Each structure stands twice: as structure tokens, then as C-alpha cells.
């Protein structure tokens, strides 16, 4: 139960089955609150998590949020991503993407030069020139402008220019500010989807008469109140409930999840993002939305506040336990009793006994960079591992409420101590802690993985979790193999060399 209702009226904990629509919220929190990068409030967190939670505000390494371009351009097949930044941004993307993208470049850098920075050139004209060139070369269905740190600092008014330019060149333009000043790594996808949510069509079930469309615009927040003078405008529960899922997944995995829901009698009306821009899902008051990844808090807020959708808060469909909880929660909201999930989950655990036994009892430390850490930690604890520390760049405790609750529940069931959650960790101090704790496995980024291996510590490079297939029931085996691979590899080498051999001087 959520103890402190005043602070969290939007989300309810995993145990309650209904979700609260944004319009009922009398708190009228400003839009900024859900995306504040603020240190945790100890009292309110206590309501959600019994373990230690702190914000270290340290120097940590993660990728720039513009990295989301590398998977989003592949997902949205008729898109073009224009990153407006400097050489630094371009060089990073180039290294991250490798040269493979040049088979079909649907991404480019609008490189800001000295004349742009010193406001000697008209940025609208410059962007128009580039977008016309893109239209000529590629003719995409949508151009996504990715703002960067530089555009933030020089206060380039991308949102102001986009509508005018869109009208001029006849291609929709989505503006997303995926910059490292505010966001980390996977949150880049969050900003793009939040922006794209504005372009989704209005759900037809909401639009009955032209008059009502106007009234929609002036409707107040308390439209569900029985005192409302607007008649027949609000969507009652008798209307068709729709389900839209949000988060970028390869189409095969998305289909798998859809199939799981279909088995329970729930149809997914659409995905944000869709494989084609023209297939963006319709949104509105009758639409329930549910996310599939933990880093999508801003998209969730956008969908709720600006498109009036209702958010289903649940743990994320990573691992069979998470997937089951996710499906169950959605079923609850749609008033359906789920069938067969418990058996599915049990069967999967049973089939993977051998792989699980290999990692059971081993300890793991997450240095943290991709915001998937809580879900992954929860899964690994369910597999029998012990998690010492979970580093994470940013934690939206409300959006991850379901996941946190499941984490706690899992720890209690598996009889292991609650892991310590450290937001904005300091990598240097973490390395000292790792040296002391000597975990069996450290999940970390590629800046630290090799040096740790050289010092006899097995590591799993974390980026792989963002592009491997880890969602759903059927990918549990792959997820387990990802985690156990470094341990298996080092075990294989053990036959030739001592496992604890160090390749470094200190």
C-alpha cells in the first residue's frame, strides 16, 4: 500500500489492481516534477523500498542519450534522424554505430560550426536547407530532430522552428531533446517517444461531434466530476477500452508480447513507436497505456497528461516473473482473470534448472548505466543470485513502483538481503567497494569492464542488455545465458590459467 498518498496520487502500488487516470489527480503537480533529477526523498522512498537507497551524485560513465538513434532509426523504418550537434556528438555516434549504417543512411549530423554558435547564421534557414536536402535524398515520412547539449546551451528554439518548417517542406518533424545535461543513455528513447506521442492521432472513440472537439480543448481537469456541465463528453467505462504499449522492441519480440496478451483475450491496438510512422497508435481518454521498459517515465507522463491516457503501472516484462506480473496487471485492469500464467512461469524455471544452478548463490554488483538495472537485479535474485549494489543513473520511483515492489517481494521470498540502490553513483568509489566486496560478477559499461577483468573480476558488459532480446517468457534462456556467459568463459579458461590471475600491475 502506498503510505504517503499526498506524494504519489498518480500511481498505485502493484497490489492494487486499478490504475488512476491523470485527470483525477487533484494534486496538479507541474509537468516538471515527474522529470526532475532530484535526490531521493527518504521518507517517501521508505514507502516503496525497504532497502538502502541513496543518491551519490558522483562522476559516472554512461552513454550519451543520442545513442538512441542507433536503434530507433532501425525500428521506425521510414524515419530520418537529424542530430543537431557538434563534432563530439557526430564522432560518438559514428563510433557507436560503426560504419554499417552507411548501407542506408537514415541518420545524419547537422554539424554546428563556429558561425552557428556565434549566431552569425540564421538557424532556421540552415535547418531548412538541410531538411530539403534530406527530403531530396531520402524522402522520409518523418524527420526527427534530436537536440543535444549544444543546442540546449545556445538555446536554439527547435520546438519553435519545427512547425513552420514542417508546413514549408511538407514532412512532419518531431523534436526530441535527448541531451546529456538532463538525461542518460536509454532516456534518449524516452524523450523521442514522449515527443512522438504528440503526433499520434486522436482516438476516434473520443470524437463524436465537431462541437465536442471544441469542448475538448476547453475541458477542465475535473471533467469526470458529476458536477460537470459538459454532457456526454467524458469516456465512461462502457466505452471501448483500448490498450497501447510503448517502448521500442524488435518487431518479433513485440509480436511475442502481443501474443501473450492475446492468449488472455486482450488485443493490443497499437505500439509507440510503430514500425512505420503512419501506423502511430490512436490515443485518448479511453486508451490504456503500458510501458515495456523502465526508462520510459517521461513518455508515460506525456501520455497521461497531454493525451489523457490511463497508465497501467506494473513491473516490466523482463524475465518470466516480470512478464507474468506485467500480463497479470494488464488483465486486472481489463477485468480479465488470467489463465495459465503461473504454470508457464513454473515450466520455464523448471526447464532452466541447470543454467540457474550455475549462477545460484553467486554475487553480482551493478555499476549502472542503462536504467534496466532494477528489473535485471530482480530477475537475477529470483534466479538465486545475491545482489550487493544496484547503481542507476536515474530512478523514477513512481514509474518503477511496481518493479521496486516486486524486487522487495522477491528478496523476501528468496531470503536475501535487499540490495543497496545508488542513484547517480560515483564509479571511482564503486570500484573501491568492488575491491572490498569481491563480487563474483560485475555488470558494468565498457569503460570499466576490461580493467576489472584484468584484475581478476568477472564482468558482463552492460550495453548488451539494451540490444539483446530480454523481454517475454521465451527469451528467458537467452537472458540467463547473457549473464552466465562471462562466468562460463572464465571457467573455460580456468583449465589453462588460474582464474584469479591478474593481467594488471595493481
Amino acid at each position, binding site marked *: 500500500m502506498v503510505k504517503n498518498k499526498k506524494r504519489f496520487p498518480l500511481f498505485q502500488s502493484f497490489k492494487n489492481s486499478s490504475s488512476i487516470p491523470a485527470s483525477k489527480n487533484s494534486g496538479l503537480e507541474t509537468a516538471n516534477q515527474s522529470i526532475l*533529477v532530484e535526490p531521493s526523498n527518504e521518507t517517501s522512498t521508505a514507502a516503496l523500498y525497504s532497502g538502502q537507497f541513496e543518491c551519490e551524485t558522483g*562522476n*559516472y*560513465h554512461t*552513454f*550519451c*542519450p543520442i545513442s538512441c538513434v542507433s536503434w530507433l532509426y532501425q525500428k521506425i523504418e521510414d524515419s530520418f534522424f537529424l542530430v*543537431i550537434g*557538434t*563534432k*563530439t556528438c*557526430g*564522432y*560518438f555516434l*559514428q*563510433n557507436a554505430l560503426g*560504419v554499417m549504417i*552507411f*548501407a542506408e*543512411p537514415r541518420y*545524419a*549530423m*547537422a*554539424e*554546428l*560550426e*563556429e558561425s*552557428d554558435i556565434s549566431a552569425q547564421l540564421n*538557424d532556421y534557414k*540552415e*535547418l531548412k*536547407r*538541410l531538411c530539403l*536536402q*534530406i527530403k531530396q535524398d531520402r524522402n522520409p515520412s518523418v524527420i526527427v530532430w534530436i537536440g*543535444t*547539449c*549544444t543546442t540546449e*546551451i*545556445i538555446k536554439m528554439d527547435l520546438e519553435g522552428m519545427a512547425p513552420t518548417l514542417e508546413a514549408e517542406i511538407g514532412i512532419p518533424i518531431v523534436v526530441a531533446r535527448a*541531451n*546529456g*545535461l*538532463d*538525461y*542518460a*543513455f536509454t532516456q534518449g528513447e524516452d524523450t523521442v517517444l514522449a515527443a512522438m506521442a504528440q503526433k499520434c492521432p486522436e482516438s476516434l472513440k473520443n470524437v463524436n461531434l465537431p462541437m465536442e472537439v471544441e469542448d475538448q480543448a476547453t475541458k477542465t481537469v475535473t471533467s469526470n466530476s458529476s458536477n460537470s456541465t459538459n454532457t456526454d463528453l467524458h469516456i465512461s467505462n462502457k466505452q471501448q477500452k483500448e490498450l497501447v504499449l510503448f517502448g521500442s522492441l524488435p518487431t518479433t519480440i513485440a509480436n511475442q508480447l502481443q501474443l501473450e496478451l492475446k492468449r488472455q483475450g486482450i488485443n493490443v491496438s497499437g505500439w509507440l513507436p510503430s514500425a512505420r510512422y503512419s501506423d502511430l497508435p490512436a490515443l485518448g481518454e479511453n486508451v490504456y497505456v503500458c510501458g515495456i521498459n523502465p526508462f520510459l517515465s517521461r513518455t508515460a507522463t506525456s501520455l497521461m497528461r497531454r493525451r489523457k491516457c490511463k497508465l497501467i503501472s506494473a513491473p516490466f516484462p523482463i524475465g518470466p516473473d516480470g512478464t507474468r506480473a506485467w500480463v497479470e496487471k494488464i488483465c486486472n485492469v481489463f477485468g480479465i482473470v488470467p489463465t495459465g500464467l503461473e504454470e508457464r512461469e513454473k515450466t520455464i524455471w523448471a526447464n532452466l534448472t541447470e543454467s540457474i544452478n550455475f549462477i545460484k548463490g553467486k554475487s553480482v554488483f551493478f555499476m549502472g548505466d542503462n536504467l534496466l538495472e532494477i528489473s535485471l537485479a530482480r530477475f537475477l535474485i529470483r534466479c538465486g543470485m545475491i545482489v550487493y549494489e544496484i547503481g542507476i*543513473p536515474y530512478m523514477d520511483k513512481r514509474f518503477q513502483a511496481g518493479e521496486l515492489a516486486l524486487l522487495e517481494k522477491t528478496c523476501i521470498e528468496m531470503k536475501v538481503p535487499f540490495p543497496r540502490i545508488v542513484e547517480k553513483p560515483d564509479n*571511482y568509489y564503486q*570500484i573501491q567497494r568492488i575491491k572490498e566486496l569481491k563480487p563474483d560478477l560485475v555488470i558494468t*559499461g*565498457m*569503460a*570499466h*569492464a*576490461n*580493467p576489472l577483468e*584484468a584484475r581478476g573480476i568477472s564482468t558482463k558488459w552492460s550495453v548488451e542488455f539494451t540490444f539483446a532480446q530480454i523481454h517475454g517468457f521465451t527469451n528467458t534462456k537467452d537472458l540467463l545465458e547473457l549473464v552466465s556467459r562471462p562466468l562460463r568463459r572464465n571457467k573455460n579458461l580456468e583449465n589453462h590459467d588460474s582464474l584469479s590471475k591478474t*593481467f*594488471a600491475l595493481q
Partner: protein
Amino acid sequence: MKLAYWMYAGPAHIGTLRVASSFKNVHAIMHAPLGDDYFNVMRSMLERERDFTPVTASIVDRHVLARGSQEKVVENIQRKDKEESPDLILLTPTCTSSILQEDLQNFVNRASNESSSDVLLADVNHYRVNELQAADRTLEQIVRFYIEKAKKDESLTTIKTEKPSANIIGMFTLGFHNQHDCKELKRLLSDLGITVNEIIPEGGFVTQLKNLPKAWFNIVPYREVGLMTASYLEKEHNMPYTSITPMGIVDTSSFIREIYSICHKVFEDLTNSATLDVEVRDKMKDLKILNKKDLESFIDQQTTFVSQAAWFSRSIDCQNLTGKKTVVFGDATHAACMTKILVREMGINVVCAGTYCKHDADWFREQVSGFCDQVLITDDHSQIGDIISQIEPAAIFGTQMERHV
């Protein structure tokens, strides 16, 4: 604004960080937003380095934007000073943070008052220079700082080593074949009787930079990085240098001959100034590098018999290489050398030779004209792509980007 798909050279801060992280016991602090520190990943994964990359990002976020970075930067410098105890802490902004126009020099001054390590601000304009130029400049800046420091301390040694010696300037992390080239160079120098004094920055200590003037001369194997430092040492300490790249048989021979004339001159100067002991001097005459006849015989032996390259080019199946068309593109050093090797030593036709090092265009043109039909100086990958499609060469000698034409 320009539409850019691919950049050949990286941004300036990468050059600075490559130099800083190549030195031992130097720690760099990047004043940058989250994600700009991908250099750490590059060094760990591409260079496959065993140690933690000595670069820490002092993160610029909204709080820092609002209240200024002074506290955070100074605190981070002091922290690294305590934690890592480096000899030098180098502070560098990136393109983004340089727009903030914060007085980083001021922070550096404040921090150096309380730290036991030296603290420097990398003096580079991020919108005007690229990775290579920035690396060159940063190396020169660090060398200059320590030599001036040694001058003040009076710990600067200007007395030449007894035997001929050389500094190798420009080997550093993530350099193209640097590790292997360095091994070869050391072997060659050893054959010639020259000792290696200092190699910078790779594996060097900034505390040893004051020993640079001890060497008889400097070697700059890659012109992109090292020339500024060599020019400084020449101007301030009368140190001659060679910037002939010993790539290919012809150029290796020229390299050796130039070193000969340098060493010969230094030897004469030392003799005339009576700084050399007579016995030592006499023994030195036996060193290959001071003996013209021995040297020429060495070059001949190496070219004809030890290196397989010349024989390879002469063997009969290589007759088929004659007249084959090729295109060469890369940095100035490698593109120029490759062109000359293909034409002079293998009889292959280079239709177009090019480089993305626009700042070195004149030198490049001078080197390759006469060896190729067309010279292309550009950093626009589509131009070189177009030329390759037009020419349809049998082989392309280029960068990663040219693989995809």
C-alpha cells in the same frame, strides 16, 4: 551548419585525451556533459588497454549550468590529486562546455594552489582544430611547460648524451600501428648504434621531459602529431629533427641518410667544443651511424636481402601489378608514403592520392605530385567516394569509410 555523415578525424578533445592518457601518471579531467567521455570506452575496447583510463568526467548538468562549474571542477581536481596522485592533471573542455565560456584557467589556478600535482588547462579551440591538430598542440603545451619548469628549477640537462641518441616524438594511444612501428623503429636505431632517449607521449613520464634536450636529435615519425613539439625543441634548444617517415624502402633509406648527416654534424660540434672524451670519440667512429661507408653498405644489405619487399616487387608474378589502378586516401603521412611505395617500389599506378588533413595540403601536394594523376584534399567522404566510383580502381588504400564504397 553542414550535413555530416562521417568524420575522418575526431573532435579536438579526443586528441588532447589521447596525448594525456598515453603519458604515465597523468590524469585528465573532462569538463563535459554525460556521454562525452566515450573516449574511455574507445581506449578500453579499441586499444584493449588493461588499466583504467586515466580520464574522469566532471559532469556538467543543469545544476552546474545554473550555478557555474567552479566548485565542481576544483573539487574534482583536488579529489583526483588525492586519489590518484598523478604528476599532472590536465583539464580539458569539449565543444559543448567550451561554449559556456567559463574561466577554466581561473579554476586551474585555484586548484593548483592546493594540489601537489601540476594542473594545466589544455589550450585548444574546439571549433577550429580537429583531433590531430589538438593532439599536436597539447603535446607541445605539456613539453613546453615541463621544460620551462625545469629551466626555472635549474634541473634542465642540456648536456648531450655521450653516444648518439634520439627522442621519438608522436607515438601514442589509438594510433594507427603505433605499437608495431615503435618496435621496428627501436630495432632500426639499435642496429645503427643510436640509443633511444625518450619516447613521448606513449609510456613517458612528464617528470622525464626535462631530459629531452639530452638527445642528439628528435624523430617525428608521423607529421600529424609531433611536429609542433619538434619545432619548439629546435627553436629553443637547438635540437635538430627529422620528419621523414621511414615507410617503404626508399624513404627508410632517406631517413637513415638524414639521420647520418644530423648525427655527423652533432658529432662534429661536440668534437669542436671539446666536450667529448678522446677515447670515447674514437670508439664512436665505429658506430654505423657515424661511418658513411658502413651505413651505405647497411642500407644496401637491408634493402636487397633482409627486407623481402624489394625482391617481392622484382619477382615475376608481381609483373601483373604493373599499371594496375589504385586510389589512396588517409592521413597525410600514410597516404603520402603509401603513394610513393606503390609507385616507386611496386610499379603500381596511383590515379588519385588524397588526404583529409586539409591543414597540411601544401606538404601533401608537394610529396605526391609526380607520383599520381590527381590530388584530392577533402574531408567530405562523398567526394572521395565519387572519385572511386569513377575510377574503378583494382585496389583502394583508404580508411574505414572507403571500405563501403
